């Protein structure tokens, strides 16, 4: 069961592509632990050193566009990011995030009502997001049952191993 997620918001813009999340030159490092220090390097070189476990990424339209590199959601998860909320996601990033058990939440309205460092409370099952700092509530898109089952199993591998 996925619990309600509470965390501090990191706000990014539209079309945040996977090259921004983790640039190509770090993808062939042996493992995600070595890669994660370069997360968002082109956009904010201090991100990886200042992000805290539990923090939430807030993106605009088309978050995670570009390459199929699973390293993108993997480095976010490795840094302790608890969820990504965006107006819309690029499809491969969306699938990859679900497959590694990183909750991805689609909500058009919350973006304009979030400032950097606001505290958000996300209930993935109910499809609700609360901006605790601003005391405002929003509705997010619920995931299809099949996708929710994968997320609840902690990702695709957990789901397959359970079968």
């Amino acid at each position, binding site marked *: 069961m996925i619990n309600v997620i509470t965390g501090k918001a990191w706000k990014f813009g539209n079309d945040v592509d996977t*090259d921004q999340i983790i640039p190509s030159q770090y993808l062939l490092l*042996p493992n995600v632990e070595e890669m994660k220090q370069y997360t968002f390097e*082109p956009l904010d070189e201090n991100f990886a050193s200042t992000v805290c476990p539990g923090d939430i990424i807030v993106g605009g339209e088309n978050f995670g*566009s*570009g*390459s199929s590199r699973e390293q993108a959601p993997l480095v976010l998860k490795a840094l302790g990011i608890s969820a990504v909320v965006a107006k819309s996601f690029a*499809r491969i990033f969306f*699938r990859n995030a679900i497959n590694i058990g990183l909750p991805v939440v689609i909500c058009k309205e919350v973006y304009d009502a979030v400032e950097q460092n606001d505290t958000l409370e996300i209930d993935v099952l109910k499809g609700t997001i609360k901006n605790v700092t601003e005391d405002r509530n929003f509705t997010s898109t619920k995931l299809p049952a099949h996708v929710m089952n994968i997320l609840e199993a902690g990702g695709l591998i957990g789901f397959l*191993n359970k079968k």
Partner: protein
Amino acid sequence: MGMTMGEKILARASGKDLVKPGEIITAKVDLCMSNDGTTHLNIDIFENQLKAEKVFDPEKVIFIVDHNVPSESAKTAQVHKKMRIFAQKHDIPFYEGTGVCHQIMIEDFVVPGQLVIAADSHTCSYGGLGAFGTGVGCTDFTSVMHTGEIWLMVPETLKFEIEGSFKAGVYARDLILKIIGDIGANGANYRIMEFGGPAVKKFTVDDRVVLCNMAVEAGAKTGLVEPDQTAIDYVEARGRHDMNLFTSDEDAVYEKTYQYNLDELEPMIAIPHCVDDVVGVTQIGDVKIDQGFIGSCNNGRIEELRAAAQILQGKKIDPYVKLLISPASKAVFLEALAEGLIDIFVESGAMVLNPNCSVCWGSCQGVIGEGETLISTGTRNFKGRAGHPNSSVYLASAATVAASALTGKITDPRGFVV
């Protein structure tokens, strides 16, 4: 109600007579491919998390080293070694340094009607042969490599009806840049882009691949062109005869239809840092360049090399500009050698590189420095894509890149071709 060709491929792959957009299916995969961009992670998942022992079918799993080849570091060499050992152990086809993965798949494996899953976003290229290719990450890929199956949501289809014919100096590359500029980087998100109409029927397989390859840059799940005699001839010439020719029904339902006329198209440029920020070459103004690149899964095939050679023949590139050319595969390289194109490139001052992803992915060869500007036939112009975070990438056709390398600034190729 009829089905689109994409729906028909997914219906066949899932053993159904009919599928509808929005439906979640479990499909059998005809081929799956992974390259050195992620395979080391796939192998870790396969061996340590899934604890799998066998791939589902060794003839249908392909490993290709194309992103950082030859390796530029000891760590990369280790990643390649890991792939090589796994491929040997499981007796699966393995390619290293033979070309860009999608070009190898098109030359050696794909046939019309297949469902192909690969751990690379440009897997949508296979639509050029009428096959449904789509990119996934390493967990999805590893699951496919193990089970031979994948869950997919049946997408809606957008139709692109193309008529007219290219003017001299204008190419399929310009058309797809124009389309992405019009519909936006998420204009086809989750959808199929089906390219058709009288102009596409006359396109070569190379040109069809150029269109389908960049479907993902508009967010699409895949790009497709209906297979016809041109596609059949291409695969049969390479010894593959077993295929399914799916075409869209007259009463198939499209979410939206777009019309384009090639007679009205000019050379197009995607400006930094998004693929959908596209302008005509006549609106580009004075943009000085430091480097040009011709190659990649989008635009490194023989037709693009011929277009570039036509412009470079007997001329010298600007002394302060580097031009890097990487044929998309060994087969393309050999064809270019036989036609004398490589001589033309080298004589002009260009550097000809081994077939690989090269400058397009900014990690291995021809990385650019702070404040530098690249004009490229690659797939993406994201911030920092070709090297330093503060560098710029413009996307254009091979002809535009060649003309620009001669003058040192972004240049309309139409003044150079007849």
